[in-house]
């Protein structure tokens, strides 16, 4: 469970800094407003240039605070939209993976291994995670490559990269995107098409 309050993502960091500035400026604005009100009480002349300037400054600060607040809200809204988009993409990716695995008739163990391969784990680590011998993992990996019609790790991963990069990805219910039969002959066959949609 992550507890860090200092955000790692640039957009979130921006929002945090913006929030800090808003708070800082709001407190400054209130200080000036209080000062102006005090001054008015003591001797209220609006034609006093000092007081006049102070009033202007206070109003400018308040306007700045409100502007920054609107700015922060739209930044947060944009971040929210992006999050939703990402979640949809992730959901779609999981669906794509499941469809592929079903089509290739991977066993449960092979599915686990395949996911870990896609996550970039090497055979040693996968064996450690699954507490099996690395020879077993190697055999499972070979079986996965054979079933998916690929020649190895890189090509296997590129099958999914292709899905991510093709323009059809996330474009509604296009059955073609998720049709693994297209990929069964290897990525070479889908290569030119992928490039076409990419550019």
């Amino acid at each position, binding site marked *: 469970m992550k507890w860090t309050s200092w955000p790692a993502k640039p957009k979130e960091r921006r929002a945090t800094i913006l929030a800090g500035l808003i708070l800082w400026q709001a407190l400054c604005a209130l200080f000036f407003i209080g000062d102006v009100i005090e001054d008015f009480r003591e001797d209220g002349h609006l034609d006093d240039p000092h007081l006049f300037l102070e009033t202007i400054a206070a109003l400018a600060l308040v306007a700045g605070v409100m502007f920054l607040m609107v700015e922060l809200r739209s930044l*947060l809204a944009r971040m929210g939209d992006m999050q939703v988009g990402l979640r949809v993409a992730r959901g779609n990716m999981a669906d794509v993976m499941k469809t592929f695995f079903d089509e290739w008739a991977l066993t449960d163990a092979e599915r686990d291994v395949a996911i870990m391969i896609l996550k970039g784990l090497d055979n040693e680590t996968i064996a*450690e995670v699954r507490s099996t011998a690395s020879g077993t993992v190697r055999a499972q990996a070979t079986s996965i490559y054979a079933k998916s019609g690929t020649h190895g790790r890189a090509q296997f991963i590129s099958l999914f990269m292709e899905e991510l990069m093709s323009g059809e990805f996330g474009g509604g219910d296009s059955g073609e995107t998720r049709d693994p039969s297209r990929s069964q002959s290897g990525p070479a066959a889908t290569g030119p098409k992928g490039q076409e949609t990419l550019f």
Partner: protein
Amino acid sequence: MTLGSVMTTDQSRGRGSVREVAVWDPLVRLIHWSLALAILLNSTIIDEDSKVHAWVGYTALGLVGTRLLWAVIGPKHARFSAFPPSPMRTVRYLRAVFAGEKELHLSHNPLGALMVYNLWLTVIALGVTGHMMTTISFYGVDWVEEAHEIAFGWLMASVALHVAGVAFDTWHSGVNLVRAMIVGRKNWPKGRETE
């Protein structure tokens, strides 16, 4: 390292059981903890007759003022409309709690919302009476000082109830509220009713 990988793998397989929802924006969090700090400082270590006490008080007042403005301008969960002060909804919420139902609220739950308004109003009352004590016309006036004292007692009781409420809701709903107020996101069990 390896264990971390296992965790992520398991999470992705159990995808959808829990998801994180961004609830509290950075300004809300900043104001919350600043106000908590101001209250803590002014009620404990700062001498109440000192200038610092007055300035920390004004800062607290400014924090609440900024929060109120943000509740009009700000995003969905920070707005008044996300947690309207409603006795009806509070009664309904309490019934649900006693009936053992676990309804979840993205913003404050109705009872928590009442506490939020209570805390803000109390801080404002403290700020106003505190300021009055420094003015010529109210300096040394008994009822103002008494009002300040009473408001302070009320604030302390409210803070205690607030902390207890947070602890209860965390236990009852399973959503870690303290964490939510620090990182801004609530761990949301999927498929649960939201309001």
